[in-house]
């Protein structure tokens, strides 16, 4: 099955799924799976392909949520679909904020980049609490209530997210097939050497980061409208960063399907855990343990590990076949 066919099957299935009449809880779960699939794919651009582990993506998720909230507040939204039309603006704002931060944070080494991004996460959370005049602080910020009929309430969000996933995956394919992807791989393998032979390392890194956080912010916007009321502690949550990173690692970094697969497995598992453990603190322990196990037992992720197995098996069978032919000839 070629890549194009696989993609067509995925998106055909995604578009058809709501038509079979799912329960609300199932569609709600799928909305969250899609959110994390888009964000993991976006994180993969910088964390996977370039090997720069950003720990601050939750900050941009939150920025997206607040940006859409504020746009709705001041733009006098008229129809239910209008907030979706503002999403590109939300993405652009986050990308423009991310650009200088990346340019500064990526000047030295990966550790420092991770430090700056995680610090940014907590600073943005503090700002969301403290800038009461803009964000409403701990009181939260209200968005317009989506005027969609209760029976199909989730569907508009679902289809917007399917669209965003298509964008994220097409971008990933674009990266994998283009010189940008090659440059990012060179950055990941040995940045000094890459720069030495003339790869524009800074340019591609900052570009990948900006696109990545732009997409993440757009998901934040969709989330904010879906929830229609946002609070600092949920909009800028370290657990969102952790979830994104974990999903990409579980599925496989620098692969097209890894982040999507990781999001499907983990978000479903997470909702199950939250349901069983009732959102108590045991949930945090379980999550951290799953994280540690994946890091230690499956550091490369599902997709690369399985692909390796298949390749080895195929190699073995092709090696055997000519040998047999040779003997009979």
């Amino acid at each position, binding site marked *: 099955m070629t890549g194009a066919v696989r993609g067509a099957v995925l998106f055909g299935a995604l578009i058809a799924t709501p038509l079979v009449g799912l329960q609300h809880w199932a569609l709600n779960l799928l909305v969250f799976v899609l959110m994390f699939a888009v964000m993991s794919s976006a994180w993969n651009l910088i964390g996977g392909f370039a*090997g720069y*582990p950003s*720990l601050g993506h939750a900050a941009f998720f939150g920025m997206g949520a607040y940006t859409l909230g504020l746009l709705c507040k001041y733009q006098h939204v008229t129809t239910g679909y209008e907030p979706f039309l503002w999403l590109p603006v939300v993405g652009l704002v986050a990308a423009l904020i991310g650009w200088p931060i990346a340019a*500064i*944070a990526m*000047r*030295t*080494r*990966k*550790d*420092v980049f*991770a*430090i*700056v991004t*995680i*610090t*940014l*996460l*907590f*600073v943005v959370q*503090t*700002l969301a609490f*403290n800038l009461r005049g803009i964000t409403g602080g701990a009181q939260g910020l209200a968005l317009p209530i989506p005027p969609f009929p209760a029976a199909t309430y989730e569907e508009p969000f679902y289809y917007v997210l399917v669209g965003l996933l298509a964008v994220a995956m097409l971008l990933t394919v674009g990266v994998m097939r283009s010189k940008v992807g090659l440059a990012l791989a060179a950055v990941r393998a040995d*940045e*000094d050497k890459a720069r030495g032979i003339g790869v524009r390392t800074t340019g591609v890194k900052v570009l990948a980061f900006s696109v990545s956080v732009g997409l993440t912010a757009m998901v934040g916007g969709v989330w904010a409208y879906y929830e229609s009321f946002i609070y600092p502690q949920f909009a800028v949550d*370290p*657990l969102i960063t*952790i979830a994104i*990173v974990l999903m990409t*690692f579980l599925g496989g970094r620098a692969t097209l399907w890894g982040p999507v697969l990781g999001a499907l497995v983990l978000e479903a598992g997470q909702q199950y855990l939250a349901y069983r453990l009732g959102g*108590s*603190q*045991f*949930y*945090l*322990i379980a*999550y*951290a*343990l799953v*994280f*540690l196990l994946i*890091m*230690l037992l499956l*550091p490369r992720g599902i997709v690369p590990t399985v692909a390796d197995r298949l390749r080895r098996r195929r190699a073995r069978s092709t090696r055997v076949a000519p040998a047999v032919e040779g003997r009979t000839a």
Partner: protein
Amino acid sequence: MHALIQGVILGVLTGGVYALMASGQTLIFGIMKVVNLAQGALVILAAYLAYQLFTSFGIDPFLSIPVTTVVMFALGVVVQLLFLRPLRPADRAELSLLVTFAVALLLEGVMSVTWSTTRRSINTGYANGSWTVFGYQVTVVRFWAFVLSLAALGLLYLLLDRTRFGRAVRATVQNPDSARLLGVEAERVSAFGFGLGAATAAAAGSVYGLLYPFNSGSHYDLISRLLSIVVLGGLGSVGGAVVAALIVSTSSAIVAATVSPAWSEMTFFVILIAVLLVRPQGLFGKVGRGAI
């Protein structure tokens, strides 16, 4: 002016405690090139241990430090052996960030379950006492916290400067490959180093519990401050971390006193960005070492 000087006094005294926490973190980085995102959680865990020893047995937090230090040292060694050593060297630097983040979450979860998320504070008899020196307030707890931090840093200095273990650590920091060739056992130094980092967190944690109310989520407040401090001081430089802690703590106390406490949280980040713009290797960091 009065508020400003009061802010400086407060900043310097608090800076001593941060110096202690950050010295452990930067030591761990120096030895293993691991950015320990769990350092804040270790500090809070130590604060809980001191809290528990105080409320259950009435042991003063200053006196329980030897106990908590030993416990936390052991915990640090366990974390290193269980979670960090198995990582493949090829991507250890990248994975260790995520692993220590996961350890921080694990500790947060365990602390929430054990002590709930209610804010706790250690109320000793002298908790609210203060002296007035030339019209400036100096709280008793903060003064002794500062003295204790200096003493602990002094011990750490002696350990690194005068002992065989310290020599092995310094050799590993300077050049891991040569150190190994000269017979330094890297794994053992790493385990002891992580234990030592956790032990400084223990000493600092007891004091932190005396100074501020805390709950399991408090490690988030700590971690961004500590990270800004170690980057400013130069990753891996213990002396740099001490100086940086004083700078960062004093300037944020000044901002809190003159502008508003709400913005003092931002001071850390502004300093971090400024450092990266002007001097990316930090005040005392070396260029190129362990660079990507």
